[in-house]
């Protein structure tokens, strides 16, 4: 490496973090001069009441609002197109996403189509968006996806049975209202999945080839917070202090990976989500130990720091021991959170591996993985975790 300080960019949205942040929704909508809002959410979030509360808050402040809730986990391209159609028809001028990664990615997709026309799949890749999307305000209700601060939108292209990654700095939302209180309705299962997603974000950002000292800071802090609090948060859903810590961990991870990029875990998880429609966080959690094992020797020092942040005392330990301790710690956390150890448990078959590996290799996230894998190496990874 020529320098320890290669060119790096850091972009973060305006965000308000803290209990009650969500209640600033009307102020933000007004300050962005919006008159008609399309509120994107999903049935799960509707059930918790956060979406309804947000819509009511807008109406109370005299802002008309249309709620679009036909969004599934791993948002589909046609859902995006439907939303964009409604956005245009109703002459909306702002997007508000209330929910986890799915509604937020869907809202980004709707914004892209609303400003740029064409089909959402036409924008797959890096820097393909010509016109900025309408103003987007995100109110995350999970502590994991970090789509509220990231430059990524992952959409399920149904006809290709794969997830497409749309990467652009213009996808970073205009503002995020990050309110830990929304996590109090999160189920232990989703708490586990999203929490592990955040951990993977932090780990992959920290070992990413596009990382920087700035993103490193956020990544390590995120790993520390998750290692110390995730178990407890999953066990005590209504403990607001714990929720604040996991929410902050997710935010830190988001700021890190949005700027530093991800790695093989996400590339392989996207592939599984696209082909088998599996929960994103859960796939990440199962894949993480295998990818650490695969990458470790390329950037051992980085993984040592991760292990440190994760609460493992690495002093006087060899690299091999650090590798094993870290993998064990990840597996133990998964087990404690009730996440299965093997891919076959969530429904992956041996027959799927070839195409899963092929798609994973083509995923944009793979580009910043510290070790560039060959197809058979990916296949081996899947195979060992089956």
């Amino acid at each position: 490496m020529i320098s320890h300080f290669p060119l790096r960019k850091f972009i973060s949205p305006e965000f308000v973090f803290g209990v009650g942040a969500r209640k600033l929704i009307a102020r933000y909508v007004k300050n962005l001069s919006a008159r008609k809002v399309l509120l994107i959410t999903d049935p799960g979030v509707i059930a918790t009441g956060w979406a309804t509360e947000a819509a009511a808050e807008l109406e109370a402040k005299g802002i008309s609002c249309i709620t679009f809730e036909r969004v599934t986990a791993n948002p589909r391209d046609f859902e995006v197109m439907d939303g964009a159609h409604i956005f245009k028809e109703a002459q909306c001028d702002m997007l508000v996403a209330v929910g986890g990664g799915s509604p937020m990615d869907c809202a980004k997709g709707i914004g892209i189509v609303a400003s740029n026309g064409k089909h959402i799949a036409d924008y797959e890749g890096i820097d393909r968006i010509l016109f900025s999307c309408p103003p987007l305000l995100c109110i995350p209700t999970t502590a994991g996806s970090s789509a509220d601060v990231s430059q990524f939108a992952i959409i399920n292209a149904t006809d290709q049975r794969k997830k497409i990654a749309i990467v652009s700095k213009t996808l970073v939302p205009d503002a995020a209202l990050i309110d830990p209180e929304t996590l109090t309705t999160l189920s232990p299962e989703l708490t586990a999945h999203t929490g592990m997603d955040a951990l993977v974000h932090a780990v992959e950002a920290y070992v990413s080839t596009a990382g920087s000292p700035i993103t490193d800071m956020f990544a390590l802090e995120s790993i520390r917070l998750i290692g110390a609090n995730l178990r407890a948060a999953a066990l005590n859903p209504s403990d607001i202090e714990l929720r604040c810590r996991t929410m902050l961990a997710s935010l830190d991870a988001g700021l890190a990976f949005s700027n530093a990029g991800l790695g093989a875990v996400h590339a392989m998880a996207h592939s599984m989500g696209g082909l088998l429609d599996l929960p994103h966080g859960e796939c990440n959690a199962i894949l993480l130990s295998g990818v650490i094992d695969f990458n470790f020797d390329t950037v051992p020092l980085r993984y040592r720091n991760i292990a440190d942040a994760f609460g493992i005392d690495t002093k006087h330990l060899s690299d091999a021991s650090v590798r094993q301790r870290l993998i064990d710690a990840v597996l133990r956390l998964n087990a404690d959170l009730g996440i299965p150890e093997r891919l076959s448990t969530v429904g992956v078959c041996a027959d799927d591996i070839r195409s899963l590996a092929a798609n994973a290799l083509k995923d944009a996230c793979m580009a910043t993985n510290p070790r560039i894998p060959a197809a058979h190496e990916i296949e081996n990874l899947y195979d060992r975790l089956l």
Partner: protein
Amino acid sequence: MTDSSDRELRHDELRDGIAGLGEHSIRKSYYPELQQRIAELERYRVLFDQSSDMILLLAVPSGHILECNESACRDLGYSRDSLAALTIFSLMPPSAAEHAVRLFAEAQESVLKKETFVTTFATAGSGNLPIELSLKTVELDQSLFAVADARNIEERVQAENALRASEERYRTLFEDSRDAIYMSLPNGDFIDINQAGIELLGYGSKNEIMQLNMERDIYADPTARRQAIQRLMNDGYLKDHEVQLRRNNGDYIDVLLTSNAMHDEQGCIVGYRGIMHDITGRKKLEQQLLHAQKMEAIGRLTAGIAHDFNNILTAILGYATILELKMTGEGPMKQYVRNIVASSERAATLIKRLLSFSRQRPLFRTSLDANSIVRATGELIAEIIGEDIALEILPAAQPIIINADKSQVEQMLMNLVMNARDAMPQGGILRLKCEPYLLGDDFIQQHGYGKPGEYALLSVSDTGTGMDREVLRKLFEPFFTTKEVGKGTGLGLSIVYGIMKQHDGFINVESSPGAGSTFRLYLPAFRLDDDPATRQASPE
């Protein structure tokens, strides 16, 4: 090796892309799009400003000017800011402003359809600009506005005024023309006629004449109009075409008609326009002259013939007288000779009259009272007219002194009285009248001859058969007679005419079939303060 380094290169590129180091990577910004939109708006602004119409965006219902284009500022002489401080109502005259206020009030209830009307805008220079104003409401952001499009119609109004002035000028030309100018439909109904035309045809008002039809009511001979139109069609126009028209009072006038046809866009004839120049006076003068020339020629001719004929007659009479003297005793032969003598003497008398007609005989003028001639003639004729004719002799109350040949004037009157008698086979009234007459310009204008002054007017009227126009026209021609062959010579009225000429007088006749006739003789009279001695008779 090449393979893996290629892959590494691709990965580096992807990595930089994700890191946001790509060529076009920038955080979300609306500025580029904003600039594009601003450029678009600028183009619309140019359209808006370049419109030659004044365009205003107005608040409803207050009428406040929110936006205006450059044409509005320029034409009204305001800056954008000062115009934006006004309402549209303040630019308009009160009645138009009230109308606009009402429209705006109604527009709040229901959508205003585009409303266009002509009014004026007050300019900063306190002028008034004529405009055609279109108002239309529009809804923007759920608020009601109005767009006013005011078209400057100053030029149009000026053009209209110029046209009106031009029309006025032509109307004046039309109305003030001394010649009659008219327009008529193909069927002859009047479209228009000027004052000179109304006067020429003797009507009191245009309304009266507009009810008439040229062919039916104006042309003396209806077929003459059709002939004139035929000629117009052949030549494309009529120039100085002579026609005779009938005036309101029944008089006939001669006019020269210059006319052409009026066409519609398809080229069909929709009417005729024409100028009529009255030549009645000139015609009469021409006729007078012609008559005088005729008389002159006949006079010279008869003088020559009469002289020779008189010599021959003298010889016949001489030899017949010798023959009568030589024939002694009575017998049929002697009676034949006496008949020859008597016939010759009658012939000699006729010759004398012919010579008189041909001015061979000088006048023996004396100053005398015209009334005395009338009285003397009246006494003379009382015996010779039938009992079924009532005679009225009406001398003037005062003496009217004329310088005339008494016997000649008597002869004239006799001549006219005989004609009057013959015109009343079933009886009637014969009036012989003498009155003073002041001949003025109106007379000259009406008849085409005459000399202003005081006259003794001797008139002979009957209530008899009257004469038609054809007869009247030839009345004074020598050898013209309506009497049976052998009953009249046809010289009577020619002689009357000649005598009047010798006396510097005039004669005319008024007559129509069934309405009797009146002959009027105008003989120059001495004014009372005139010294008769200074008034010399013209030498013969």
